[in-house]
């Protein structure tokens, strides 16, 4: 690694906040967002007047109803913030791009306390019948919508969902590495076990391997419980300059390194290695920026919008060798709360709810702060976790993050 300290080390997460989380809460995205934001600001020991930066993912005009949440101008105005820096957008290293941008803004001195949020109301949006599907507009002689850009290469063939792409990642891993559905199922079963210890998780009833395997198939080899479910909720953080950390009321979570690389082609179907996709590059670039190693990680919150993504991240981040993720998770003990790599300790997105990456970052902070209650991880010798790895995305976009408790 370079002799210049990575700029992101000047940043720390000093406040965390979350709204109510659930299915079809029926509350507006701004309502939920303000709850989470005010929660995070208070948690950081700050007031609105201290907030001089604001960032979100994915920002204006993006995706289907309930996907994007309120824009930064809406939140700025609703909270009457006076900002030195602001940023909203969807292109970058996964959903955490907003958090990474905030770290860099703080490191560059553009802001001192950045409020970062991500809000989804997909459950309410779909329940109210406003689910639009995949858009498109005219162009042919018929009445069927026509598509441009990347979708033109996939939609004609009924590859309409990320699950179809990730099913092919899983199938390729079965072919190359001998991955089994029993092994993959451990990702889902582990999430469900942990969700049972998390009062705010969406799916908490116990699930066994039999139930996992017998659930209806979505796109082979991925079944219903390999997929997360739309939910409503907002998550917010205050990213501060690290010199504020000693004054913060709660233990700060220092940003040790971020992983932002995308070295392969940015495409679901043209990426060179179908078994890894962009997680490979984000993870590699993160380890290039730190003296820490995978063995130092005490707890991992790895993106599991689909079970196979968490499997890919386990390998990409070096917690086991390439292709060894199946045997690594087999039986579930390695990724359990008392395992060598406690994984998705709040239930992940599979059982905790699709907070779209930010729920995983939130749980990393909860664990480092020792606030996990029944699901709190303790490491051998009874010490609390000190290093957390977080990842967002997978497929053609990916980002990762190393957080540490204490001086970072």
């Amino acid at each position, binding site marked *: 690694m370079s002799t210049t300290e990575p700029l992101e080390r000047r940043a720390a997460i000093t406040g965390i906040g979350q709204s109510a989380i659930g299915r079809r809460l029926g509350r507006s995205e701004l309502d939920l967002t303000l709850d989470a934001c005010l929660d995070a600001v208070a948690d950081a020991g700050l007031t609105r007047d201290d907030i001089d930066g604001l960032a979100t993912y994915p920002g204006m005009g993006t995706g289907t109803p309930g996907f994007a949440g309120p824009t930064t101008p809406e939140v700025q105005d609703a909270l009457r913030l006076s900002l030195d820096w602001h940023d909203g957008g969807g292109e970058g290293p996964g959903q955490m791009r907003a958090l990474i941008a905030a770290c860099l803004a703080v490191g560059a001195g553009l802001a001192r306390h950045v409020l970062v949020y991500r809000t989804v109301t997909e459950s309410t949006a779909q329940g109210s019948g406003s689910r639009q599907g*995949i858009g*498109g*507009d005219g*162009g*042919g*002689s*018929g009445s*069927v*919508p*026509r*598509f*441009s850009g990347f979708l*033109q*290469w*996939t*939609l*004609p*063939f*009924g*590859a*309409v*969902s990320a*699950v*179809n792409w990730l*099913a*092919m*990642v899983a*199938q*390729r891993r079965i*072919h190359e590495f001998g991955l089994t559905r029993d092994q993959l199922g451990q990702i889902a079963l582990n999430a469900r076990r942990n969700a049972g210890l998390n009062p705010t998780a969406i799916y908490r009833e116990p699930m066994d391997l039999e139930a996992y395997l017998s659930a*209806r*198939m*979505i*796109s*082979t*080899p*991925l079944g219903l419980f390999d997929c997360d479910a739309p939910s409503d909720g907002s998550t917010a953080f205050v990213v501060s300059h690290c010199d504020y950390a000693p004054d913060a009321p709660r233990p700060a979570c220092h940003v040790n390194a971020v992983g932002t690389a995308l070295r392969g082609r940015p495409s679901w*179907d*043209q990426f*060179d290695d*179908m078994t890894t996709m962009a997680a490979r590059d984000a993870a590699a670039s993160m380890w290039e920026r730190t003296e820490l190693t995978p063995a130092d990680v005490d707890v991992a919150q790895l993106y599991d919008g689909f079970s196979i993504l968490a499997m890919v991240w386990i390998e990409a981040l070096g917690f086991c060798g390439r292709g060894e993720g199946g045997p690594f998770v087999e039986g579930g003990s390695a990724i359990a709360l008392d395992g060598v790599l406690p994984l998705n300790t709040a239930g992940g997105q599979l059982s905790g709810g699709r907070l779209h990456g930010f729920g995983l970052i939130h749980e990393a902070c909860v664990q480092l702060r020792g606030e996990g209650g029944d699901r709190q991880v303790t490491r051998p010798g009874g010490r609390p976790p000190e290093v957390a790895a977080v990842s967002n995305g997978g497929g053609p976009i990916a980002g990762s993050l190393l957080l540490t408790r204490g001086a970072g």
Partner: protein
Amino acid sequence: MTADGPSIRLLPRLEPDNEFFWTSGADGRLRFLRCQDCRSFIHPPYPRCPFCISADVAVEPVSGRATLVAHTVNVHAWIPGSEPYIIGLVAIEEQEDVRLTTNLVGVDPDDVATGMALEVVFEQNDDVYLPLFRPADGSAS
């Protein structure tokens, strides 16, 4: 046996840069953009060759033969009325980093194998000829 694809084919909007690709099957041939300097095939089509940055690119036919990189049987009816169908990711014989998402036809899911040899067959929908792939030369039924 599965369906050839979803019950409704959502179609590409034909534009100056992609029209050649989507109408190529009218004469039964699959075509890609090819760099006239370094001879690389380029997909999706771009104004310059991404390998050597030459602007001298032209449409050329390929053999239509490909190998299977990965596949999935889509079961969930995203498009109402759809029966299960096979989505395949194929690499063309001429250049392994040129891939197409497609449907595998004329093959039972149980007989689909990663790496199997395939050949193109076109399905016309309106003014679009969708390149689908079947096992090459009767290598499967």
